[in-house]
């Protein structure tokens, strides 16, 4: 009888350890996805921005076909990583607040979808530029007008994805992190304030002030600190264990 109990204890211990291992793995995956989202997105922008912001974008797009495709591909990876973050962290966040956990996953999936729509418009612009060159690159044609539509549509998809879906998601995430204390509160407070600043950034953007670009730096840096924290230290497990026993 005593032996049986001991066995049961050992089993429980084993199950608990497995669970902890899987939380540790989740933390590392989420950390890596945060880094992958930031890095791929930056590569995408570096490749695409010079083409899309040039005045002669149809010719530029045609001539830099590979930059367009590879740039679009990296934006797509950033979108998939963003969705992946929301999905992988769901199991952890839902222990503290299931509706916000689902809201966070939904916001990041929407962000990923809007990034994908952005990619669609970039690739469609490439197709349009190819037809434009086939038609002999006429100076006075509707190709330019449709090129402008595609660039504007792509920009708006991005602004909704980053400026709305992502910013809301960052507020939700850092609120839950703050409440649950699964990472130190200085990280979640920093993230929450960074996300608020980003809202200001998007409100001020139509004014075209150059200085507002700096406003996104705090959240960008916080995300990388958070990512490294997750990879190196993981979630604060004791806090998680105690909460779990209550439920």
């Amino acid at each position, binding site marked *: 009888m005593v032996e049986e109990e001991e066995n049961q204890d050992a089993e429980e211990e084993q199950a608990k350890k497995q669970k902890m291992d899987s939380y540790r793995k989740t933390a590392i995956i989420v950390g890596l996805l945060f880094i992958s989202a930031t890095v791929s997105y930056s590569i995408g922008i570096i490749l695409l921005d010079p083409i899309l912001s040039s005045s002669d974008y149809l010719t530029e797009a045609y001539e830099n076909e590979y930059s367009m*495709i590879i740039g679009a591909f990296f934006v797509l990876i950033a979108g998939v990583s963003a969705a992946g973050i929301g*999905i*992988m962290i769901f199991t952890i966040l839902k222990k503290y607040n299931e509706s916000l956990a689902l809201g966070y996953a939904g916001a990041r999936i929407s962000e990923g979808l809007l990034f994908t729509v952005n990619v669609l418009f970039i690739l*469609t612009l490439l*197709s*349009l530029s190819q*037809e*434009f060159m086939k038609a002999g690159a006429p100076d006075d044609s509707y190709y330019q007008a449709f090129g402008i539509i595609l660039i504007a549509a792509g920009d708006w998809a991005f602004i909704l994805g980053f400026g709305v879906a992502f910013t809301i998601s960052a507020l939700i995430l850092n609120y839950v992190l703050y409440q649950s204390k699964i990472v130190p509160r200085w990280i979640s407070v920093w993230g929450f304030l960074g996300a608020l600043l980003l809202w200001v950034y998007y409100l001020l953007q139509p004014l075209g002030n150059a200085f507002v670009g700096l406003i996104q730096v705090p959240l960008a840096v916080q995300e990388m600190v958070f990512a490294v924290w997750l990879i190196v230290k993981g979630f604060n497990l004791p806090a998680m264990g105690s909460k779990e026993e209550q439920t």
Partner: protein
Amino acid sequence: MAEDNEEEEKGEENGIYHRKTAIIVGLLFIIATAITILGIVFMGSSLEDDPIDLVKVADNENGIIIAVICWTVLAISVAGIGFFMYPILKKYNEGLALGYFALRLIEAILILVSVISLQSLVTLSQEYGTGDYSPTGLEPPTTMLMALSDWSFIIGTMIFLGLGGLVLNFILYQMKLIPSWLSIWGFIGGACVLLYGLISLFGHDPAILAAPIAVQEMVFAVFLIAKGFNPPVINNRT
């Protein structure tokens, strides 16, 4: 909730684990494949010219509309597979199960984006027949709508389908819900169609890369309908 669990466990004892879901998912996989082929047949060759001939599009209006309806049904089936599989997959890992659901949902939305573009192209071709337009003036919007439809179909049914195939078969393999050879085949098939999508971005079309997952899905579907899932082995309940 307690009743559900009881039923589930009974089901496991009799070796008919989630029997109904298995049949529904199997049928959805078959519907998805059949309706895709049906759509391609009705579409005919009216959209294969380069540049697109709007007169041909207008002539084949009914064929394209039937194809577009087929692909709408495809989108519904794809999303359906995602949410019917969720309760089964979440026993292994809730995050990955949600991930599979999201990947299938995004694939369905991209198919619908393609449908919207094709429908708009049909509308444009009708306008072309009745209005006073120069043929070259309508080339840019035609190109744009066709390219948008093609790209969203490529990204949806190749890249997101491939990612979905990887996640699904990884979990099926881990839980041993289907024979390992079938899930490994599905995993490789997912990788192949993902690669197909990436190569398609560069304008090539190695269609053979779609074959492994296409055949595997049909074997998987027949397996689910005829036999159902094997009882799961769960070693990572989170």
